[in-house]
């Protein structure tokens, strides 16, 4: 039972409550009658903000309409961006084409990798915007559905390209070789003392936790060198060592650092002292010498087996987008890309090798790994076998990685 005192207390509280509510009501009633403003000013202000915003966007992204046809080229974000002057490289490479055929070439570097380009082409399949796509490599072309997005085309000047590249890339000519490179492991020179095995590196060496923990590679789903590394691993284990390829991944799974793409992998590898070795390209040493002079800071460690060195050759190609807006111009563009003008710029801007025979390379390329110095893994892991197994290999890889 409540005592009288507490009853009293409660009623006092009640009064306080009432009192407070009253005050609040008065205050809120007053604030609910604001000064009467003309609604037109508010509406006008909102409209002005909206118009200014739309106008600025339109001005920023405005491209003057032109009488000339525009050829749209889809490529990945780092295309030809590694040279002396990435801002003018497209003018240098494709300006002569624009002049000769009185057109505009728009290189659209999509903010993604080659897989993302395919996905974009798939999205736009019913109403394509792009005429040409550059950057589909000799593995990506084997993925199901990719050739449905392209029209086969054999350039008139295809004889300037060694047939090895055509056979490695696509004998059916859905894509035409543009450049090629060797995907291999590279190491920091100052790590060599700690790990002399870099001179004759095997996958078995890499299972040592100290080395596996120092290895940076890329996600095979989103990165073409990453996928090349996976195929290197599969080819070496299945074809040379004749063991199950999954064992190695299971062994290193806890330690290995898999980054989404090449740029991410490079920055982790470069910034972290404990990361000794990275999956990259055989031209990295040449890049270092070209830009910083002296001796390269990095060494190349192709996989060693039974007295031979092995590497995967990546051939990047260009293709005609199926039902693209300017098919004739697109064909001319592909022919043009095999010319000396474009091919001679590949080495020091893209850090790949040109596919055109007889192009003179920069002296820095003497520090690059050349195809003649290694056995190509492409030759022991054939195209049909990759095409048949790629999806299941990637699924198995995922299963290993996420468990």
């Amino acid at each position, binding site marked *: 039972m409540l005592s009288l005192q507490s009853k009293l207390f409660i009623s006092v509280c009640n009064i306080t409550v009432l009192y407070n509510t009253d005050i609040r009501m008065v205050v809120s009633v007053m604030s609910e009658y604001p000064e009467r403003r003309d609604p037109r000013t508010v509406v006008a202000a909102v409209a002005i903000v909206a118009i200014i915003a739309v106008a600025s966007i339109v001005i920023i*992204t405005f491209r003057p309409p032109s009488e000339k046809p525009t050829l749209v080229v889809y490529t990945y974000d780092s295309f030809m961006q590694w040279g002396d002057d990435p801002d003018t490289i497209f003018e240098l490479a494709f300006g002569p084409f624009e002049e000769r055929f009185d057109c505009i070439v728009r290189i659209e570097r*999509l903010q993604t990798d080659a897989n993302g380009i395919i996905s974009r082409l798939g*999205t736009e399949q019913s109403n394509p915007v792009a005429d040409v796509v550059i950057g589909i490599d000799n593995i990506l072309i084997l993925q199901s*559905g990719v050739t449905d997005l392209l029209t086969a085309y054999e350039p008139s000047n295809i004889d300037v390209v060694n047939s090895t590249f055509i056979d490695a890339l696509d004998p059916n000519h859905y894509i035409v070789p543009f450049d090629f490179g060797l995907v291999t492991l590279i190491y920091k020179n100052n790590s060599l003392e700690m790990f002399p095995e870099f001179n004759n590196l095997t996958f078995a060496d890499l299972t040592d936790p100290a080395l596996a923990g120092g290895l940076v590679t890329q996600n095979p789903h989103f990165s073409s060198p990453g996928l090349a590394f996976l195929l290197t691993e599969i080819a070496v284990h299945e074809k040379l060592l004749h063991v199950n390829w999954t064992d190695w991944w299971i062994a290193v799974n806890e330690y290995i650092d898999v980054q989404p793409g090449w740029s991410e992998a490079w920055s982790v590898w470069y910034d972290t002292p404990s990361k000794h070795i990275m999956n990259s390209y055989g031209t990295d040493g040449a890049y270092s010498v070209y830009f910083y002079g002296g001796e390269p800071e990095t060494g190349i460690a192709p996989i060693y087996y039974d007295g031979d060195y092995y590497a995967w050759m990546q051939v990047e190609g260009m293709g005609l987008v199926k039902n693209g807006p300017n098919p004739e111009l697109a064909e001319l563009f592909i022919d043009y890309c095999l010319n000396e003008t474009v091919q001679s710029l590949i080495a020091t801007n893209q850090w790949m090798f040109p596919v055109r025979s007889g192009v003179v390379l920069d002296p820095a390329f003497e520090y690059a790994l050349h195809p003649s110095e290694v056995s190509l893994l492409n030759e022991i892991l054939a195209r049909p076998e990759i095409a048949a197994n790629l999806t299941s290999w990637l699924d198995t890889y995922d299963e290993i990685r996420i468990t």
Partner: protein
Amino acid sequence: MEWRILIRWGAIASPLVLLAVFLVYPVVAVLFEGLVFGPGTSFIDAISSMVTQTVLSFTFAQAIVSTILVVIIGLPGAFLLARLRIRGKSLLRASLIVPFVLPPIVVVVGFLRVFGEYGILDSVLMTMTGASESILNLANGVVGIVLAHTFYNIPLVIVMVSSALERLDPEIEETAEILGATSLQKFRYIILPHIRASLLAASILTFLFCFMSFPIVLALGEGRFMTLEVRIWNAFRTFDFGEASSLAVIQILITLALAYSYIKLGRIEEGNVRTATIKTLAFDEISLKWRICTIGYLVLFVVLVAGPIIAIAQAAVYNPFSNQYTLEGFTNLLDPGTGGGLLPLVNSLLYAVLATLLAVVLGIPLAYLHRTRQKGLPTLASAMTLLPLGVSAITVAYGLMRIIAVPLGLTTNPWVLIVIAQTLIGLPFSARAIEISLRNIDPEVLEQAESLGASQLQRLFYIELPLLAPGILAGGVFAFAMAIGEMSATLFIALEQNTTLAVVIYQYLGVRRMVDAGAAAFVLVAICFIAFLAIEKLSGETSGGAL
């Protein structure tokens, strides 16, 4: 008269029509196409794959663990906020919302700085042990993901539960005390039943956000830990539309179930009004034991919640690799060239402003739809409002691209799509804030206006809209924060010329341009914070009610 009714219905139905055209239709069409025509994995293969099952269990597991952590850490905070008498409480409440509206990718930046490799905690430990290399990295893998989700959602619980606590009539508690109830009994039989609905609602929202999480998992998961959303993104990116659609369907079914229970809970709460007095205590009125607990809690809170935000300021000027302070991050934001930050900054602001205006303009009729007496319409409106929260942003973006943009030829400059995607993401928040304001309008005022001869337009512009102004402003700011922080859809749609700050922060982090990422993140935080302060000043109300 006929015309007027038609216009009125047109205005009110417009958001539903737009949502149907820009959200439901593209998503349904894309999912149907993906499931039926592919290319890629079939539905059966996708759901029976071990990878999908692992990803699905991980998505659930991390969301459950994060939600439990959020409730455990958030509840004491809610009590403190409701019961402790402190100065500047409304400012505190406003700043509590900040972590929640921060773009997830910005959270990642602050988070890495505090908990990551060579981060603040790591550096402290390194100096203590004299180590030269990083020893503690809490910002990757499962731990990183769960911690980041916790940081992100604690404010939800604090704000929602504390406002429920403030509605608890102190008399009931006093009566219980007088009748001899212990603190535990009081909590069990009075407080808990009272906050149950709001706690559940906050937990469901937290779970939903963690379940749908994308940028945090993408940045911290190292490709090994994936939520369904990350897997969907992977599938779209690698041209496996079959798998993407299958996973998106599973995801939508789960989120719809969650969203439905959230709406149900929202109904229960509606009756409650804030009581006039709230039982509060000053800090020196509580016992020593509780004072120590309070201080302990505040320390944990500052490290986990305030730490990452403060660290963003440091990340903006400090290069952890060269150990130097620099202003390069900010100069980068003024650099108009390729890879510079000026264009993304301008894009971010322009897109977000437009998306905010649209979200508000659409949010007003949507809020009115909640109030109509027509049977079924309020439920439809609630469902449509929440839909953008439950459908993966990646799927929306892909649907917009394929179904809307490609046939119209918009893909060469897809800024319109980005604005639409950002509007959709802000709409649930703007509509809800406006609806809450609408609830508080006294119907008598409107009747009086009518009897005094005001026309419908006069009534709308001179009475209703001014009364709705606080809700509109609060909703606008929420929508703005959501829009400017949107990353997933923009990442998918944007060409180089359309990138926004949220997208470049992700790209900078990838290539370890930490200072550039930090400076961009700092600018985003500053913009959001200023917007919130402005709302507090303008509306004089706490914007947290909008949740």
